[in-house]
């Protein structure tokens, strides 16, 4: 299937918000989403953006039954390893279900890798849920390493009251 990948712009935030909700539904966490289109516009397209995005578009003749031509996205930001240096973290990778199996997900991930390498990054990192077998199979088929399984790194999070408590001396 014909598709193009390009950098996201502020006008894409409506579709990015839509697809974030679809992805959250896939991950059984629709109630967890607190982000709005406005947050995405402010946080992704201001002077010091918190993230960057790439969007997949298909031609009009392949649009979805609801009329969407923006059918996938990847959202990433730059991170840092004090051991290895610059890295890129892929926060979201999503292709609408009816467009899967056509190489779009792979193309998105490759593009993030390319953009990361161009920025001098040595690693592409992301997280995946251990029960998400289709995603795990896809990523492992591309040659990645499960750092949690291999090295024992656990992902920790401090938020809400715990975070406020931590900020007090």
């Amino acid at each position, binding site marked *: 299937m014909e598709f193009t990948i390009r950098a996201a712009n502020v006008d894409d935030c409506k579709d990015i918000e839509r697809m974030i909700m679809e992805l959250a539904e896939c991950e059984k*966490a629709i109630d967890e989403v607190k982000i709005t289109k406005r947050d995405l516009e402010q946080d992704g397209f201001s002077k010091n953006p918190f993230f960057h995005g790439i969007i997949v578009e298909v031609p009009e003749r392949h649009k979805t039954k609801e009329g969407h031509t923006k059918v996938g996205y990847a959202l990433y*930001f730059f991170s840092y390893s004090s051991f290895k240096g610059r890295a890129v973290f892929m926060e979201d990778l999503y292709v609408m279900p009816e467009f899967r199996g056509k190489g779009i997900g792979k193309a998105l991930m490759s593009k993030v890798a390319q953009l990361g390498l161009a920025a001098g990054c040595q690693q592409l990192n992301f997280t995946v849920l251990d029960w998400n077998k289709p995603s795990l199979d896809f990523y492992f088929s591309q040659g990645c390493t499960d750092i949690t399984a291999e090295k024992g790194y*656990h992902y920790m999070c401090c938020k809400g009251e715990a975070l406020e408590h931590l900020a007090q001396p």
Partner: protein
Amino acid sequence: MNYKIRAELAVFEKMPDQAKISHEELERDGFCQNPFFECLVAEVSDEHRSKDGHTVVGYGLYYYTYSTWKGRSVYLEDLYVMPEFRGNGIGKGLMCKVAKVTAEKQCVRLQLAVLDWNSPARDFYAAKGAQDLTDSEGWHFIRFDGLSLDNLVKDAPKD
């Protein structure tokens, strides 16, 4: 940044051959126009300097990240205090400062990674109210680097 401090953290995490960064790279990447990280250092007065003469005795290195569910976040990449200065609240002080930055920048989460065998660190973070999302929700860190990263780039669509 003190090169000696970063090298010690690598030895502790049992991977001394993994530390490939030079202090020039740290200077370039942390103090350019669009820095890849920010860093706090813990300094003691000259009278308390280490046996090797260092007064910078700990650091916290972090950067800003994004959750499409929750919004702005901070990721604490490194937290380190030289062994001879532990037990004095410096690690807690560094974390507290990073948490303050998190709030000042309107970030909703502070995230980090800890090795599963590192019981003192796990206990420290658990005592501060951190949740282990690998244990509770099944999140795994996945990485492409070296040859696997190069292979991935080969398949990138042409612009």
